[in-house]
């Protein structure tokens, strides 16, 4: 019995409890909002959002399909957090990853695994800039990342517009504002499905979710079981102390951003190599990279936790589409943002939980 109680007071358990309670508060807030906007349909809307992911194998496949890139962006943001860096550049790195993947797939007709490796490199390069600017010139990584999100978007639009083979209209479609449909342009570049699409009876299903989970496990090992991961965490906790202990902090900042960029880049590759989504040349930054931030925060930057938080956020957003026509899908974003807002002071909540538990224990004694 004592063992169990000790476990309950452990930091891992309390942070798990803190995450669960922020999720519950976020959902309650969403329900209240639905009720305020359209009371008669609030119940059906909420039920649709919470159950839609399981109603058919197709929508479950969609949850897994969207979770994979989210997981990669979440891992990216979480990894940078471990080094004390806020990687708001995930959208740019994600875009660059998607760009290199699509370029290799359509213009150069490469197989999927080369495209995915290219995506990783593309993201890593875009992560390198904020890291270098921080290490060499002491420019805040948040501002560099924001600048490079925009530079990346315009650069990608510019290059796609000038490479006709990458665009859909080259491959017999009427659209010139989006990239080619991979099924027509280069079926070999699509991420293999291994028969999973028949099993789930859904075109969304492929092995990308397994790649993402494997990456999460690799990141867990890197962060928690290697000297490199230890150095990164030390830099994040106290840069001066770790430098005094002989850790090259600047090298770690650059490496951390490069790895974070590579992870987001893989996310972009996974999404656009699935063959179901086409990159649209737009004037707005892709939101999926930003969604990595709540995923990482919800998981408290723990790579294993990121697997579950990405699945959760993806599940909610698939559910959100079932809330139409009574409510817009953006309701899900509201719930997620409330959850992040609460996660911002999760430390406070965690302390409160630990205190409450200690009090209970003392009361029993």
């Amino acid at each position, binding site marked *: 019995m004592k063992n169990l109680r000790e476990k309950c007071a452990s930091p891992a358990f309390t942070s798990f409890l803190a995450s669960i309670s922020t999720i519950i508060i976020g959902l309650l807030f969403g329900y209240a*909002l639905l009720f305020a906007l359209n009371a008669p349909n609030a119940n059906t809307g909420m039920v649709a959002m919470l159950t839609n992911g399981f109603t058919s194998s197709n929508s479950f496949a969609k949850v897994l399909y969207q979770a994979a890139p989210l997981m990669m962006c979440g891992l990216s943001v979480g990894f940078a957090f471990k080094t004390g860096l806020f990687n708001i550049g995930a959208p740019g790195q994600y875009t660059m990853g998607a760009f290199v993947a699509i370029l290799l797939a359509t213009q150069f007709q490469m197989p999927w695994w080369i495209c995915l490796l290219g995506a990783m490199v593309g993201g890593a390069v875009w992560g390198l800039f904020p890291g270098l600017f921080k290490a060499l010139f002491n420019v805040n990584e948040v501002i560099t990342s924001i600048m490079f999100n925009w530079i990346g978007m315009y650069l990608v639009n510019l290059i796609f517009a000038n490479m006709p083979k990458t665009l859909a209209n080259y491959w017999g479609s009427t659209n010139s504002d989006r990239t080619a449909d991979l099924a027509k342009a280069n079926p070999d570049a699509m991420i293999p499905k291994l028969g999973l699409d028949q099993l789930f009876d859904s075109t969304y299903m492929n092995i990308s979710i397994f790649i993402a989970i494997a990456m999460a496990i690799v990141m867990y090992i890197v962060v928690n079981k290697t000297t490199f991961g230890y150095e990164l965490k030390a830099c994040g906790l106290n840069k001066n102390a770790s430098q005094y202990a002989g850790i090259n902090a600047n090298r770690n900042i650059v490496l951390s951003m490069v790895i974070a960029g590579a992870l987001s880049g893989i996310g972009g590759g996974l999404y656009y190599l699935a063959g179901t989504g086409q990159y649209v040349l737009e004037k707005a*930054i892709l939101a999926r990279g930003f969604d990595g931030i709540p995923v990482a925060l919800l998981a408290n930057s723990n790579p294993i936790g990121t697997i579950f938080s990405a699945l959760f956020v993806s599940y909610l957003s698939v559910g959100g589409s079932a809330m139409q026509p009574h409510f817009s899908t*953006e309701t899900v974003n509201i719930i997620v943002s*409330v959850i*992040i807002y609460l996660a*911002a002071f999760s430390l406070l909540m965690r302390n409160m939980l630990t205190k409450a538990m200690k009090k209970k224990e003392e009361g029993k004694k």
Partner: protein
Amino acid sequence: MITLANVLSCTIVFAVPLLLVALGGMFSERSGVINIALEGIMVIGALAACFSLKAFDASGFGATNPQLAVFFAVLIAGACGVIYSLFLAFAAINLKADQTIGGTALNQFAPAFAVVITWAIQGQGQTQIQIPSWVRITSNTFGLGDLEQGFWSNLIFKYFYLTTPLAVVLLILAYVLMFRTKFGLRLRACGEHPQAADSVGINVYAMRYAGVMIGGFLGGVGGFAYTLAAGSTFASSVGGYGFLALAVMIFGNWNPWTILGGSFFFALFKVVASYSSIIPFLPTFEGVKSASNIYQMLPYIVTMILLIFTSKKSRAPKAEGIPYDKGTR
């Protein structure tokens, strides 16, 4: 010449939101709170202002007193910006939470909330709010009648809204408040060394609240100014101008006059990008499709290059981003 007048007029109208929002960020950061939520604050301000304009239009008040209605909309935008910024202040000051994360949450909340509210008020699938046509100041507003196209008339009246003269007033007010009053001195002290400020009896929490709230007011008004500049509808977005304003603020070294210069610099590049095909002396990049992307990239690249050279003498408030804890005094 008419093209030049149009470009300049357009530059002014896009520089106004950048100027206002960057000034808002300056107040917040000078008090010690990083305000990454400016984008979200802009959306909330614009949303409130557009709905109030719609209401003024429906009641007939707007058509009879157009500029008074716009002035009220500005006040409403500012007030809603203040209210929304309180969420950031509460998390950052009272709960000592991570300021960038709290700001990110507010940025994500605002556009989603705007869409949901726009749906709820206007009906399903209606994601855009129409801005009434009477908001623009024309030559008729001054009783001048219809002017012919010309350099001066285009420069002044092509894109002229009440927010432009208001921005000039607010800029001067911001400078006076920040550098010529006791309040400004105290505010800056809280961003540089809150412990020292506290030890001489300044209430750091109150000053930081004031900084964030002034930032919220200017951010809300800036959001409204952006929607006026951007077109005739508001579609729950301010096109990344909040983030751009953050860059302008850093570029302007947290000083109102350099911020003014920075906002014109950014706005000019933005406008040149969209006018690039009809400006005669610019390189047209023969054979390159979508060459306007090159111009749109430029302000960001130039900012990065400038940051390399200026970061060594950057005058960022020393205590920004660090929650103030009385126990550390």
